[in-house]
């Protein structure tokens, strides 16, 4: 039997000890003496959040198919265990072997959102790994980052030995082969880093690049310092999802996790081109898995996991060509067994409602619309190809179908936004309430309809057409929200409408970390020293630590967070080549300011540059 890293007493005194045991169904165990590479895969948040992430399951499965590699998992210990590990100097360990992370060959950290950066430091710190890559000697694991935040890795570049830019399925084998060969040949850490950066596409080694700055604080130059290391790092893209590895033995946790179900990824990328959406740009081109393959995957997952709950994973899932057939297959095959299916991000139209009616039978939960902006003009600015008529038609149809709870998502602080656009949010919510009263006869009504308006504040992200846009101060954001609130209070159906808005401080911090450069690392380190951790959690969130960290380090948060960038500025992430060109993004930024809509990839190719990968929708459309 495995020896656990924690004593009975520790495990019995923390909340949810199952977070730290491993042992879940489909966890992989190997003989540590018979593998060459030990890989610790980390999601720097609590177990329930980290376990819900598909990307880790894909890599976990893929790495463990290699006989020479044992990939294990590690998540952020929750605050109770964090304290115990520090007090008793117990090193952080991997769930499967319960061995210290420090003894691994690799520590891979997936970066899904900016507010996890202090948790990255927590993981390194608890593992006993120096926080700065430059202070790590041969004995420490290679710390490698990946995931959406690695598309601007610069604020955390100092903490990582390397980043993998792109989709994990493509060059990880090449990287691990190289590591194994160089380790066997007795090569040094530095030699491996240089070889990986020069030979393996998509690998970015921050220590091999030098940045210089202009007097105004913007970047003057960004260039490799070692011959052979490429000036531009090309994002890695899976050409054919059908032949890419997919985990059919997904982990089944003991405790309930955030997304407690088996996951079937139906497509990657999105045809829509919403201008605020990073995923919509970095995962271009849109690629689908075939219907036949998905049916096979579903069957295998049911058999291997015993889950009674499934979710399809995708951006804008109603755009998947065979969505209806897939849902029908699922409902016909597994419905009688009581297995349920969740669909993410559906557009509310008749097709989706038809699909949802099949899924839910009599139950009518929340129906979610994401118009993102209140007025048509502003929706055109962000290229959210959704008209008011489409929204109202969808709502009417939903009300006729028996739904009465509607959730509406909007963003505030978008470029060109005016108070009129904010009032338009209240107006749209009111029109939906009117549609309810018109559509549902009095005798069939069961009280009022229930409309929840939620607003978050827009954060410009790297590699989006809005990457140059300004942000606002927390107090300005709150005044935007109060305009919406006043608007809702002034409409006829105000009693049917609820309003919720997102934290403003956290938004500004997110903006700072999303568009920052290498000089932000000092702030992150200082905030961590001041106690910042789990910044995405209300329990622990404290903006004052970050303000203090900026003060202590002399870094001006507004320079990175709030400033509108000029088109000729070198952006910290310009060295990454995602396929989509900067000139396309500039064109889109210009069209945004003119409120001109760009057609989606299925309607017309707009020449974004992703066609260079020669796959997915780009291939289909060019034929």
């Amino acid at each position, binding site marked *: *039997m495995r020896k656990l890293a924690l004593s009975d007493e520790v495990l*019995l005194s923390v909340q949810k000890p199952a977070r730290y*045991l491993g*042992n879940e*169904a489909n966890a992989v165990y190997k003989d540590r003496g018979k593998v060459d590479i030990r890989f610790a895969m980390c999601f720097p948040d609590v177990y329930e959040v980290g376990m819900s992430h598909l990307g880790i399951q894909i890599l976990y499965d893929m790495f463990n198919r290699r006989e020479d590699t044992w990939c294990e998992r590690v998540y952020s210990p929750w605050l109770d265990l964090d304290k115990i590990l520090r007090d008793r100097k117990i090193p952080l360990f991997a769930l499967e072997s319960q061995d210290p992370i420090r003894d691994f060959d690799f520590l891979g950290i997936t970066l899904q959102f900016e507010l996890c950066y202090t948790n990255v430091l927590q993981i390194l710190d608890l593992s006993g790994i120096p926080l700065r890559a430059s202070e790590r000697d041969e004995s420490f694991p290679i710390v490698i980052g990946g995931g959406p935040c690695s598309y601007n890795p610069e604020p955390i570049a100092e903490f990582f030995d390397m980043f993998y830019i792109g989709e994990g399925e493509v060059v990880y084998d090449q990287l691990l082969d190289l590591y194994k060969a160089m380790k066997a040949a007795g090569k040094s850490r530095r030699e491996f880093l240089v070889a990986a950066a020069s030979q393996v596409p998509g690998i970015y080694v921050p220590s091999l690049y030098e940045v210089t700055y202009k007097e105004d604080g913007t970047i003057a130059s960004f260039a490799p310092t070692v011959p052979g290391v490429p000036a531009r790092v090309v994002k890695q893209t899976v050409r054919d999802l059908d032949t890419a590895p997919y985990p059919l033995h997904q982990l089944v946790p*003991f405790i309930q996790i955030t997304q407690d179900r088996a996951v079937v990824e139906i497509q990657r990328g999105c045809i829509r081109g919403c201008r605020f959406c990073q995923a919509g740009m970095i995962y271009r081109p849109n690629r689908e898995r075939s219907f036949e393959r998905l049916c096979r995957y579903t069957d295998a997952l*049911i058999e291997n996991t*015993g889950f*009674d709950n499934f979710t399809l994973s995708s951006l804008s899932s109603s755009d998947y060509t065979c969505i209806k057939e897939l849902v029908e297959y699922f409902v016909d095959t597994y419905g009688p067994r009581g297995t349920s299916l969740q669909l993410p991000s559906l557009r509310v139209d008749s097709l989706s409602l038809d699909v949802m009616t099949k899924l839910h039978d009599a139950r009518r939960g929340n129906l979610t619309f994401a118009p993102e902006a209140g007025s048509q003009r502003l929706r055109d600015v962000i290229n959210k190809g959704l008209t008011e008529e489409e929204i109202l038609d969808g709502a009417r149809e939903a009300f006729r179908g028996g739904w009465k709870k509607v959730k509406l998502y909007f963003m505030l602080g978008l470029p060109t936004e005016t108070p009129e656009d904010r009032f338009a949010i209240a107006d749209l919510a009111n029109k939906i309430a009117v549609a309810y009263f018109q559509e549902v006869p009095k005798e069939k009504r069961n009280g009022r309809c229930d409309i929840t308006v939620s607003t978050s504040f827009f954060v410009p992200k790297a590699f989006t057409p809005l990457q140059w846009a300004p942000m606002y101060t927390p107090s300005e954001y709150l005044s935007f929200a109060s305009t919406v609130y006043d608007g809702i209070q002034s409409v006829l159906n105000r009693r049917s409408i609820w309003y919720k808005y997102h934290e403003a401080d956290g938004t500004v911090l997110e903006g700072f970390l999303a568009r920052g450069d290498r000089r932000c690392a000092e702030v992150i380190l200082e905030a961590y020293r001041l106690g910042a951790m789990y910044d995405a959690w209300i329990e622990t969130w404290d903006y004052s630590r970050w303000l203090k960290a900026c003060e202590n380090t002399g870094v001006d948060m507004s320079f990175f967070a709030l400033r509108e960038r000029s088109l000729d500025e070198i952006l910290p992430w310009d060295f990454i080549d995602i396929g989509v060109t900067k000139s396309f993004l500039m064109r889109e930024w210009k069209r945004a300011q003119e409120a001109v809509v760009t057609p989606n990839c299925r309607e017309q190719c707009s020449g974004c540059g992703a066609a260079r990968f020669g796959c997915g929708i780009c291939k289909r459309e060019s034929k």
Partner: protein
Amino acid sequence: MRVRVKFAKYGPMKFIGHLELMRYLQSAVRRTEIPVKYDEGMHQRMVMSFAMPLGVGPISSAEYMDIELEAPISTEKAMQQLGEHMCEGLDILDFREVDGGKRMKAMTIVAAADYEVWFREGFTPDWDWKAGLKEFCSRESIPWVKETKKGTREVDMRSWIYDWEIREDKVYLRLCCSVGDNLKPEQLFGEMFRSYGHELPPFALQVHRLDLLTADEAGENYISLGDLGSRIP
């Protein structure tokens, strides 16, 4: 057809609570071909009940779970399939057809539990606890205010101690264990410590449940739940 599955729970599984264990076993059963029955409700749930939930901390050599089958499956085949899907710390020990009567569920008939209890490393008391235990269990009656979900209840703890024996550094106990009346080893030790002016520290005891028992018709002898029913050919 009612089937009683006997299993052991130990090692890392001792930190897994009852609800999580239930989730685990449900998904494990779904990974096999065992034709298990679901209830008719809107959320179809597997018909599954347990003799007596084991909390987080104790280990057990004999837990019992009742499920209903739509069609028979042999004990051998079911055990082999379930066995393939068990994680470290769960062992399937038996799979028997039992009386399907309404009042014959394991949770209804369970009456007593056998335990072995010892102090975890570093928690052995520095006073003569064995003498204390001997004296405590030899008392005529032990008035005890039991805390229940609904409030408190005054009971005689002594009447719930059916048997006890000190075996070197471990203590064997047979205690009352049923839906209505239930005495846990930690509660017995807690009261014993208190009556000598000590406090039982948290996590001091390791409890090992040896078996769960039911009373025979005369109510005089106890039979292991595992001895009921028969293996399915």
